[in-house]
């Protein structure tokens, strides 16, 4: 039972980046994601909205197979990125995650210096040819995440010593530094002030030029500002998915309308 309104996604268009069909996720006996079908476009920002506990993070984690690390979690259905089934046994989840970066809901800087936090991904994937190359990557990642000015004098200080909002931006910078094709961001601005939020939104907008970005947010305004597509989740169902403008001005489903106008959630 799904009531996804038809969006113009005819099979011929090549700019579908991620497509999920009949996706089910169970945590043990809990059915957390129920039969979700969604096509996420390339070079687009897609926002996931919905009440707390509805499964936004869970679905997001399916897209780079982070759910593999949870013992009790089971994913069914097929999820394709660039037409390739990511749950195929042939697919290496490590490679997949290098391609599909993620910013987690809770900031999780490594207990290393700020510099090493950012350099972690590039080092692992051999993205830098020399030390100065690496320095450049670190600097540009920090700049893009709007935290360079705050940390440029203390790059060797531990990342865990930053404030909550700074840690959040550090994690964004860390994800950006590996140059992923898809960036999944789980509430990346939850601890940020309006100025930093605006800067991160700017970054998201800039990333859209090359990548596909999926962002989970509890702020309707943010979803409306940064995304072109919006998906509304409710109790594990994908209730409605469509152009952001249309979802916010003319929702098809009663539940979407209630949520957006603040009556549920």
């Amino acid at each position, binding site marked *: 039972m799904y009531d996804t309104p038809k969006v113009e996604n005819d099979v011929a268009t090549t700019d579908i980046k991620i497509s999920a069909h009949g996706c089910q996720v169970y945590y043990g006996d809990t059915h957390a994601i129920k039969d979700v079908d969604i096509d996420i476009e390339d070079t687009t920002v897609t926002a996931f909205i919905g009440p707390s506990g509805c499964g936004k993070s869970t679905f997001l984690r399916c897209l780079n197979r982070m759910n593999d690390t949870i013992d009790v979690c089971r994913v069914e259905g097929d999820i394709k990125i660039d037409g390739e089934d990511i749950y195929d046994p042939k697919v290496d989840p490590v490679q997949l995650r290098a391609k599909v970066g993620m910013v*987690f809901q809770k900031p*999780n800087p*490594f207990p290393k210096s700020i510099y090493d936090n950012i350099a*972690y991904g590039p080092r*692992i*994937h051999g993205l830098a040819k020399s030390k100065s190359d690496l320095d450049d990557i670190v600097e540009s990642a920090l700049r893009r995440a709007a935290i360079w000015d705050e940390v440029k004098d203390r790059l060797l200080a531990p990342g865990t010593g930053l404030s909550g909002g700074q840690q959040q931006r550090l994690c964004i910078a860390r994800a950006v530094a590996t140059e992923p094709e898809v960036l999944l961001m789980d509430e990346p601005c939850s601890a940020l002030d309006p100025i930093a939020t605006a800067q991160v939104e700017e970054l998201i907008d800039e990333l859209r030029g090359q990548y596909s970005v999926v962002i989970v947010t509890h702020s309707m305004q943010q979803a409306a500002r940064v995304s072109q597509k919006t998906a509304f989740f409710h109790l594990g169902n994908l209730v409605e998915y469509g152009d952001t403008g249309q979802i916010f001005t003319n929702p098809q489903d009663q539940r979407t309308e209630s949520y957006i106008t603040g009556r549920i959630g």
Partner: protein
Amino acid sequence: MPVLWLVLIVLVMAVAGYMLGRARALKSAGGDSRDLHSLPSYYGANVTIMTLVPAVGILIVWLLVQPILIDRTISSTVPAEAISDSMTRGLFMSDVRRIADGLDLAVTEGAMGRDEADNIRAEFTDIRDRLGNLGVALGSDVGPEVLRAAQRYRTMSSAGNLLMTLAVLAAAGVGFTISYMATGKNFRARNVVEKVIRYLLIFAATIAILTTIGILLSLVFNTIEFFRLYPAEDFFLGLTWSPSFGGGSELGILPLLWGTLYISIIALLVAVPIGLFAAIFLSEYASSTVRSFAKPMIEVLAGIPTIVYGLFALLTVGPLLMRVFGDDGIGIMQAGTAVMTAGLVMGIMLIPFVSSLSDDIINAVPQSMRDGSLGLGATRSETVKQVVLPAALPGIVGAILLAASRAIGETMIVVLGAGAAARLSMNPFDAMTTVTAKIVSQLTGDADFASPEALVAFALGMTLFVITLGLNVFALYIVRKYREQYE
């Protein structure tokens, strides 16, 4: 009144105090516990504590102090001539106590009347014989001086016991009354109970610390005694260890320290990699079924008594090594007991130690760290190497140093696996021995405790203590240094 009865009475008072105090508090609030400052049970506990703590405190102190006081008093009234030449004052007093106990027994068994016990005279009766019939064996005939002292001892003891009973009951009664009267709805019983609990905890901590200090002091005094008899530089710098109770011993610690270090290093070389890798496998790679089965299996190793490891070294590992490195093989091993044998077996013993502690520490690293690394496209082993292990490092260093302390202090495996020869050698297939093994051999047998050959055991123990302490301090230093870097 026997102490047991006294304790029971105080306990009954305490229990009654709990109920009465609780009831009184409730009554003062008109039965509505919301009007009370604290929960009703706190009022009960307050009365219990006030009844119990002073009474039991007095009881314990009294029981400790009274015998000492009586001993002193009596001993000071006994003239020096009364003590025969073959005796010291201490032996005399222990006879006195023995006879006093015997007389007590005789009275309770009904073999002697109370008056008779108090007035019996050694001049007219064979006390030794009469007490012997009751099963109290005395080493020699009882002289009049001893008997009179014993009788005085009894009188003073019974007077003391009576006083004690009165004091304890009075303390319990006073505590009970005061706290019961104080109970009312505005009395802050919770704060009192809270404070008492805090003192209780402080008390427990103090006892732990005091015992440590006590042990340490006994070590220190005996060590000083040793250095009075044997020059310190010969002890610390001597290259030979050849104690002989006839005199002319050479007591150099270096061969023993070398043996200890050599064996410990081999043990750690075995235990640390295997234990650590096992821990990483268990916590990062193993499925929960494998884990639930493998972790207890490894921990079983920790439950094996070290003497069994010693047998394993002596009967299995030693001969096995002999076959490869002995005269039939490479020919560098003379006998089954060697540093290598003991080191290998000790390493096996330490594996569960290292793995179990490291496993707990690695598990304590938050999952979000791993998620962060995996989410950037790192493999599991990269995640372990670059994120999990560095985060867990202080704990792991601690675990390793703990294992090192165990290795240094281990005795049984060395006695059975490494031989008894104190030797300075580089060959790991030579027999050597360690500090602990020599402490045992110096103190077993009938050595005179005043000779340097026996007292050297304390100096050895002290040296070990200092080394282990140093290790721990070093561990703390490393941990702290690391913390500064990363937190």
